[in-house]
């Protein structure tokens, strides 16, 4: 019985989602081995070896793994799969890209985005944009799983696993990385931020959205947006919180000018404390908010910025 866990990283730093996935893996039972596949990712392997509960880190270094391309990565995992009952990855865009491919090659049904582990073969996962929670039992010999980070606490760093270099698998040569267009920012990353300030359609314009950014910077928060704000061009795509965007669970989520469509709530309702600022007191966002302020946001936001 052992779990193979695919690490999420950028070749330099281990993403927090990995530590959260370790917590889920510990509930499945057995040794946890982390697979660090990347290009020059030795430092990441050292970080992964420190996570509580990790006994071994397998480090595969090759150009082909530098950008999380699904085809070579899936082939690498398939080569290792024989020794494991569970193959898990964080439900990041990278994990969601590669794990169904791995599952199909193993003739197993992938179990996506699990939010709880009820045993080695039984898991809970949200369906219908989080409007229902399904508990499913897998009958496959090998369980291939992605883990929703927002549902698990990060594992601590008291471990002392060993790091073992492993050989790369042959690259099938089906695809090639061209470029990343990553937004450079001093703000924390949305999915791992402890505080988030999000704006909705109520912001009215791209220029007005800067008020959200000012408030966020005052408290070291990440900036989010509803799909309505993104579709209206007020905020970039990767700000989007919701079922079709990012699923977040910060300690503090401040929703400004967001009505609270089901699709948005699905992305943030696991936040510890939710604050809603909206001039429409009937807005559904108030039904999930711990603290609601019925006010014009253009009046409230400058005051909030000053008070923080």
């Amino acid at each position, binding site marked *: 019985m052992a779990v193979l866990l695919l690490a999420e990283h950028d070749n330099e730093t281990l993403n927090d989602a990995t530590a959260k996935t370790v917590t889920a893996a510990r509930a499945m039972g057995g040794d946890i081995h982390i697979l660090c596949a990347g290009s020059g990712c030795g430092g990441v392997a050292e970080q992964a070896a420190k996570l509580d509960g990790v006994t071994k880190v397998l480090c595969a270094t090759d150009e082909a793994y530098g950008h999380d391309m699904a085809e070579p990565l899936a082939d690498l995992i398939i080569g290792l799969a024989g020794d494991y009952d569970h193959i898990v990855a964080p439900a990041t865009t990278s994990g969601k890209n590669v794990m169904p*491919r791995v599952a199909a090659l193993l003739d197993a049904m*992938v179990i996506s985005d699990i939010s709880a582990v009820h045993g080695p073969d039984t898991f809970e996962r949200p369906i219908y944009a989080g409007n*229902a929670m399904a508990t499913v039992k897998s009958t496959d010999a090998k369980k291939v799983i992605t883990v929703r980070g927002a549902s698990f606490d990060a594992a601590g760093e008291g471990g002392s696993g060993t790091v073992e270099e492993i050989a790369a698998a042959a690259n099938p040569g089906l695809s090639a990385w061209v470029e990343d267009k990553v937004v450079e920012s001093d703000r924390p990353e949305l999915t791992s931020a402890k505080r988030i300030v999000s704006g909705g359609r109520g912001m009215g314009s791209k220029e007005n959205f800067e008020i959200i950014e000012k408030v966020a910077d005052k408290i070291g928060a990440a900036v989010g947006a509803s799909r309505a704000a993104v579709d209206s061009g007020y905020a970039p795509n*990767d700000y989007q919180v919701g079922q079709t965007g990012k699923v977040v669970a910060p300690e503090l989520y401040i929703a400004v000018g967001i009505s609270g469509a089901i699709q948005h709530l699905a992305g943030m309702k696991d936040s510890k404390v939710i604050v809603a600022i909206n001039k429409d007191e009937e807005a559904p966002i108030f039904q999930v908010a711990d603290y*609601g302020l019925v006010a014009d946001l253009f009046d409230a936001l400058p005051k909030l910025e000053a008070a923080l």
Partner: protein
Amino acid sequence: MKVLVPVKRVIDYNVKVRVKADQSGVDLANVKMSMNPFDEIAVEQAIRLKEAGQAEEIIVVSIGVTKSQETLRNALAMGADRAILVEATDNVENDIEPLAVAKILKAIVDEEQPGLVLMGKQAIDNDMNATGQMLSALMGWPQATFASKVEIEGDRAQVTREVDGGLQVISVNMPCVMTVDLRLNEPRYASLPNIMKAKKKPMETKTPADYGVDVSPRLTIEKVEEPPARKAGVIVGSVEELVEKLKTEAGVL
């Protein structure tokens, strides 16, 4: 080149989902059903490729209950050329798992030999986000998932993907499987004349047995529940009161 577009009939995205009292699933009786929104985007993209002279024929496929033919007719009315309905169950509550769907699609791809399979990145009912990746694996093809921009040049495609933190541009060999994200395009509405014309477009009916595929589920559903509800909060009177409560009561500032 032929383009194959799988489409799924799902609960309409505007309908409020209700969990059944016996926890066996979600109530689908007398509920409005529509084409999965991501699949509509895939159909639209295929039509645009045809309009640009990059595709000759668009084949749409749906795997599910007999009524999925409505979803196929809708795709035909948008501009697809012909349809294949695979009747895999007579119970709308029986969701055919992505692995079984991918196996049926593989058999259809082997028969039809499309140069491209375009599909939605996920169905809004089971939210698995898996069928495209699984089909690609079974075919031994490359996959270009979560596409927000697609450019096809000869035997390669350059695809911009929506990933955590921004965008990733990749280049894949053709044939390939592409799964589409929300911002790739805005699907057209079918015009009344096209809806009439769609009724005459060919639709073949098949079963999973025709393709030698067993659709028995690998995941058994133990129960389906309502998500835990959040407790109602308080309405504060001012920004000052809000900040005060966040500091002292909630302890998050």
